[in-house]
């Protein structure tokens, strides 16, 4: 297990995510309800609660994980969190930190013509909002 020592950099990152999400992130006490509710959990490398824990500890490496990109913004965790946290906003904050550096997660030009003719508008519009900056 890795030992973590908290520095001012860690606080800075935590503050940034707090600001972007507007959520009192430190309230989470790691009950795991979000992880148990998430429809995408089987695809994720870390669980939503682990993601939150890393943010609490100001670990920027959370940005290298896949969980937030698999989040479907379904708000299931949001309605179930006993501490009233909105994890979907925290995932959005993490996505935004990356997207605002102009690092896109999809290239719509690489989607096959067949898929582009099948997908409904709302799928593309929402995917562009969530995966491109």
């Amino acid at each position, binding site marked *: 297990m890795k030992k973590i020592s908290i520095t001012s950099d860690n606080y800075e990152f935590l503050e940034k995510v707090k600001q972007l999400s507007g959520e009192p992130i430190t309230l989470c006490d790691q009950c795991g309800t979000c992880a148990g509710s998430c429809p995408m959990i089987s695809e994720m490398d870390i669980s939503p609660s682990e993601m939150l824990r890393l943010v609490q500890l100001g670990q920027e490496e959370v940005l290298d994980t896949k969980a937030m990109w*698999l989040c479907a913004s379904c708000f*299931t965790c*949001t309605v179930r969190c006993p501490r009233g946290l909105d994890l979907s906003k925290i995932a959005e904050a993490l996505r*935004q930190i990356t997207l605002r550096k102009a690092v896109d997660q999809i290239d719509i030009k690489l989607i096959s013509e067949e898929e582009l003719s099948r997908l409904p508008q709302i799928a593309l519009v929402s995917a562009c909002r969530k995966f491109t900056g």
Partner: protein
Amino acid sequence: MGADKSSGKLKKIPYYPGCSLKTKSKDFEKSAVAAARILGIELIELPKWNCCGTVFSLAQDDLMHHVAPLRNLLRVQEMNEAGLLEGENRLLTICPMCFNTLKKANQRMRDNPADLETINTFMDAEQDYQGEVEVIHLLELLKERGVAEIKAKVKIPLTALKVAPYYGCMLLRPKDIAIDDPEDPTIQEELLAAIGAQVVENPYKKVCCGSYQTVRNKYTVADLTYDILTHAKKAGAEMITTSCPLCAFNLDDRQKEVTEKYPDFEGIPVCCISQLMLLAFGVNRGGDGFELNYVDPRPLLKRKNLLSGADLKTGAK
């Protein structure tokens, strides 16, 4: 509220179709407009509407993505100022993603007058949005119209049809905009019962279908679809209803990918509630309206005697 029952005059309400109802899910719009009309409500398409963005922007500092939803609310305000709506201040949505986005954005503007002012200033070619429009969803309007009223219009009860309603996310979550109990919604069940259908309880009715992940991870979505549909079928469903064009795509069109992954899977049709209402109201469309479905519901409907012209003659307008 509700329609003017005595005079037979239609109650007007503006509605926001959204991009997908104009392209891939055309009959979601058509059938909703037709069903509402039978119930005494005239749905008027919002003039000059624009794409709402489909997802409510969750980042605190991101105001730009609320401009699109707000423009549409402004259109309702303008219609009212022009006296076109007889004071109706609600905007009806049919697509749940649009519902969620428009309602949340409206709420954020009401809760944060400073944000509203920033956007109003930014949209300098428009009048200011006052924050007075209410966003509602078709299911709410139908329920408000009343189960009894709907029952009264039924000519061909769908008694033979076993339907599992699917809700998805955007109508139920987050709590503050939900049209029903987020953990135990029943609004579709009530409406389906009103048109005589046999309602099948699906334990997966509010489990996310994967939403926009369908663009990036279509086989993950196919897995979710497989779970949702298999549970519904195990419970006895012959058909799924959903209000959402994206859920409809994931649950219906992605059955192609489901069959690739699970060759034994047998298809199940996905419709929206207003399509079924029209059937129950005895509107004979000769099977029209289902052309864009991936799994064709017509064979099932025919088997249940819900599509043959002869059966419909008595009820047809």
